[in-house]
């Protein structure tokens, strides 16, 4: 399971796991704020994503949320388990509830994202 400290975060609450394969999902804070997730729409394998552009949809009991790609790149895999069982996003956002994997077109983009400490501070600031 990914530890929160190993991930990088966006201001829109997506995370990436910058390992051999870049895994994208939403943070534990995000799933908590959304409430029970009831529907997930993922990009297609092979789809080219642009940094900060909408690439997926997560719908909860409250609302539908666009998911923005943390970095640019090409989708290499999607997590079909979450489309069948959207509750995985609530139960296990960092492990079984990941959304998709991608091959970054500009690996330097990930460096600009927040680390765990910065993200925690960002969440605290937003909630003050």
């Amino acid at each position, binding site marked *: 399971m990914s530890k929160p400290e190993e991930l990088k975060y966006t201001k829109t609450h997506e995370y990436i796991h910058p390992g051999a394969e870049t895994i994208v999902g939403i943070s534990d804070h995000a799933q908590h704020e959304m409430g*029970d997730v*009831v529907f997930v729409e993922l990009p297609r394998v092979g789809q080219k994503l642009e940094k900060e552009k909408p690439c997926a949809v997560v*719908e909860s009991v*409250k*609302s539908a949320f666009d998911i923005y790609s943390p970095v640019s790149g090409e989708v290499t895999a999607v997590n079909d388990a979450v489309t069948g069982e959207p509750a995985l996003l609530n139960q296990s956002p960092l492990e079984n509830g990941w959304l998709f994997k991608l091959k970054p077109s500009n690996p330097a983009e990930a460096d600009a994202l927040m680390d765990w400490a910065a993200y925690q501070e960002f969440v605290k600031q937003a909630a003050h």
Partner: protein
Amino acid sequence: MICAVTDNKLSIEKSDPGRRGLHAKNPLRAKANVPANLRRKAAPRLPELSEFDVVRHFTRLSRLNFSVDTHFYPLGSCTMKYNPRFNEEAAALEGFSGLHPLAHDVCAQGTLELIHDLSARLVELCGLDAITLQPAAGAHSEFTGLLLAKAYFENKGEARTEIVVPDSAHGTNPATASMMGFTTVNIASKPDGRLDVAELKKHIGPKTAVLMLTVPNTLGIFESNIEEICRVVHEAGALVYMDGANLNALIGMVKPGDLGIDMMHLNFHKTFSTPHGGGGPGAGAIVCRAHLAPFLPVPTVKKEGGKFASDFGDGKSIGKVKAFFGNTGVLVKAYAYMLAHSADELGDIARYSIINANYIRALLKDLYPSYSSEYCMHECVLTPGKDMLDKGLKTLDVAKGLIDRGFHAPTIYFPLIVHEAIMIEPTETESKETLDEFAAAMKDVHDSGVADPQSLKDAPVTLPVKRLDEVQAARQPNLRW
């Protein structure tokens, strides 16, 4: 309670070939001048039923409906109050209903006078200076309001690009901003649900065009810092737009203009008792201060020498936002409602709506805790208690359980900042008996759910269709038979 249902067939499934309501002596035939390639090859597939079959079919369906005329309908933020029948009578008067939209002003004096007088009364009620009655409803009014703001800043030679919206706002506020090409700046509310003035100061500046603020807010709490909020916004050169969806809590008691706002909208189907949605077309209004008045949609109505006439302004108007004078039939209903209440009685609307919401809140406080410990305004935001949440019972289950007990569900999962929100707006037109029955049903939902959680997870069980997969129904609707 709704009637028992044994017959779930569609009319097309009941069809019996050859059965007719009427037997025409000379059935219509395709005219020879319809080209052959445009004629149907086969008869359309329509239900073949007798007149009596059709009457029973639709009467049965209509009895399955939940409506404000059949059920308590505590949908928060929607003000589902009684729609007095005299409104309908007034709108049906031939002088109003029979008027041709293109009739010349001299032939439309009654309708023009009504628009003129309704405008004056609403301007007075809101404590502002000018009004348009053209918008077709609330969101259209918001759009019109931001058009006014845009024209106002363009006229001053200022380019402002941002709309500030608190996170408790109605979804239509950021949607309107986005539709108008503005950037939405979202600000977090304080733990008590109010706008955080310190946070507002951080996000407001020379780029800010408008703060859109709902008063009272969607948590049913009055923005007690409203005067300071307006001052901060005005010091930055921006405008305050009040979302008037919750005016039922203020009507006749508070003039929003006195709070310092620049403009607001009215929803006639909420505060002014005209029908919602399927009851007919809607109507809204933007009421504003003098500095925005030159930009209002035209025509407005002016009075000259005892006669009423269309006024097309001096060329600064944003133009029309709706044909003619808007949906005037709805305006007649709102006018009838205004005339039926004295100034004091308008204040009673707000007072009783506040008392009713607090009564429900007090009756349910041990089972469904309120988001806020304060008294609420015209609506209260509750959540299922810990004993329900611990058994996996959610707000959705409460809503479905209420349907089985003969109540329309409240608004659920809104406002977004409250987890498992149940937003209840009883309105002033419900009796104490109805509120007591509703509270008893909420208690029964709680008690039976805690005793047997699955029974509530299965709700509703009294309707033709049980618990639906609402997401799939919306995402992949099956509309064929």
